[in-house]
């Protein structure tokens, strides 16, 4: 019972930490806009917790460069499982318009595994909400899979 409740809660209470990994602020303000009255992601239990140790979802915006890739990795390491990584915006997905710039490594997935990609430049708040919902769906599927794995073994 408790396990079921925990699994349900994991989907109902995604706390996010947002890291601006060298974005132009476009995606950042859209991510913040998600929290504001018009989009109000707290409806899904989302809290911008700001601390990787507490968070379940890491929202990354922007291109990865040589300096912030270490920061990104550090934040990723400090999050405890289960965790979701959502890359937001063209830069976060592939480097976008900056992918040829000399100090750009590329997308977020070059440094840490990404669960959901949210396209757009910048991604609209609706798209970011879709991204989080998609991520939670993935988490739900993983839970199912774990269960069937457990039964199988």
């Amino acid at each position, binding site marked *: 019972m408790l396990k079921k409740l925990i699994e349900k809660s994991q989907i109902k209470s995604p706390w996010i930490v947002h*890291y601006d990994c060298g974005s132009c602020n476009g995606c950042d303000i859209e991510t913040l806009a998600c929290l504001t009255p018009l989009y109000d992601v707290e409806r899904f239990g989302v809290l911008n917790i700001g601390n*990787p*140790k507490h968070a379940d979802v890491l929202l990354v915006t922007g291109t990865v460069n040589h300096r912030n890739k270490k*920061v990104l990795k*550090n934040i990723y*390491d400090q999050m*405890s499982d289960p965790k979701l990584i959502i890359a937001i915006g063209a830069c976060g997905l592939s480097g976008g318009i900056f992918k040829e710039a000399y100090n750009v490594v590329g997308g977020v997935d070059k440094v840490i595994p990404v669960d959901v990609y949210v396209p757009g430049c910048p991604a609209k708040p609706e798209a970011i909400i879709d991204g989080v919902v998609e991520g939670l769906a993935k988490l739900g599927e993983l839970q199912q899979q774990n269960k069937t794995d457990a039964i199988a073994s």
Partner: protein
Amino acid sequence: MFENLITTLTFCPLVAALACYFLRGERLRSALVIVTGIVLILSAVLLIGSAPVSMTPALFTSVKFKTFIQSADFLLLGLILYFGIKFKNRIIIGLSLLQVIILGYFEFFMTAGTHEAPVGIFCDHLSLIMVLIISIAGSLIVLYALPYMKNHEKHLKLKKSRQPRFFALLFLFIGAMNAMVLVNDMMLFYFFFEITTLCSFLLIGHDKTEESKRNSLTALWINSLGGATLLIGIVLIYTQLHTLDIQSIISQVQGKDILLIPLALLCIAGFTKAAQMPFQKWLLGAMVAPTPTSALLHSSTMVKAGVYLLIRFAPAFAGTSLSTLVAVCGAFTFLSAAALAIGQSNGKKVLAYSTISNLGLIIACVGINTHASLTAAIILLIFHAVSKALLFLCMGSIEQHIGSRDIEDMRGLFGEMPITALVITLGILTMILPPFGMLIGKWMAIESASGNLLVILMLALGSALTVVYWARWAGILMGSDFSGKSTPEKMPLFSKIPLFTLLSSAILLGFLTPIIYSSMILPDFSGLVAAPFSIHNGIIFNNQGSFAVYPLFFIAIVVFLFALFLSRPKKAAQQVSPYMSGIQGKQPGSFVGPMNKVTTYTQSNYYLSAFFGEEKLSNLVNMTAGILILILIGVSF
């Protein structure tokens, strides 16, 4: 039996002191110290059950004894005068001369054969408790001093050991204290009072540095002031009542307003000894002495002499405005010393201020002067002595190990000295947390102080301040590098024994509070209609409230063991470095800062010097306290 025990308790230290001074072998001295310590502890324990007793030993009635005391009195004052002249301190010269004159006039013109000899020894439960504290805590501290002083002198690189003098003084001091709380003659009391003054002066100045010399002189003049007021008080009382018998003074004084002035003077004498504001300076200065000195003289015993004086005379001024003012003075000291402690990062100074603060609380309880509040005072007295001695000893070990008394340098002490860190942390917790004894006392204090607006205001603020300076200290001690690993600690046997004895008694006695109360405190209030507190199933209660000692202890033990079990280093829990805004370095507790420099993270606690700084508060506090003292004398007229 009783008489033998008393003789042992007073003379045995004296003999040991002489032996220590003249026998120069280190082994021999250690053996002597150990034996004396054991004897003292045993006789103090055996004394339990004898009280209350009042008697006059044969010695006391002899004329020789009286002459001996008289001449010893003058010798003492002469010594003080000598030190005053030697160090060119005018105040000391003045005060000692004043005392010589008054004493001379008193002994030779006023009392010459006119009064009956008072009962020599009076030992009620209060005295008994004092004797227990002095003998047990004192002996443990002296034991602790064995390895400590060895280390200390090694550190100072002394050519000729000065330990004989040191241990002699310690024992002399213990003997004098024991005698002081047992005698029933005001003049004898004054005599022993002065001995402690002189001993403290010599002990504080033990290291013979400039600073210790200066501070020891401060201690001497402030305590001489106390001696002088005490003496004047005694003389004034004598002019009215023509007796020097403490018990009969107390019973006669009640309700006589004319005697408030001498009582006020006695209170001031108590204040100086208990280092109450504005007389706190000497206690702070005393911290330059080796730690056993601080522990013995200035936390668990000597300052208690002042408190003892006040508790002893409390019934005499019950219900007067003097009593209320004593309460206000005490509460003010509690508050202001706690506030000053917040601004300190020097561990010994924090201990000193906390001592002053806690004594203030005890004196506030004395001033409230109900049976409940006196109970609170005695309970606080006991537990403060135990916990504070423990903390001082730990502090000494830490200081010798890390070479600093700064709290900030004790960060992560657990990694280096796990045992000491654990002991001092627990010691701190016994100071501030229920269900330990201090909190039981504080609970009683607050419940009884609720009837006095000014006092409760200051107690409320002060107790919050107390929590702050203790908690932050406890917090940083146990922190180490994040794995919580520690290197095993080597500790000499004679450091270990006192530490663990004190720690376990701090905890165990807390558990035994109901029993201590009913067997040691309640009997002193004999002839009461209703006891201040009743006890049922280990719950201390009265009409106003209840403190569930046993149940809380039970819960505390269960929770603590359970929590300890759950927090054992598990393999499953992944350890994670602290959050550093995402730029943590490879070493835990470091980050990659500007210019790609790996910066080690450092932290200091908040000392809020803008609010609680010593230089900011001291003058204000001293002035206010001075005014309070003046009012205290004023209302007595």
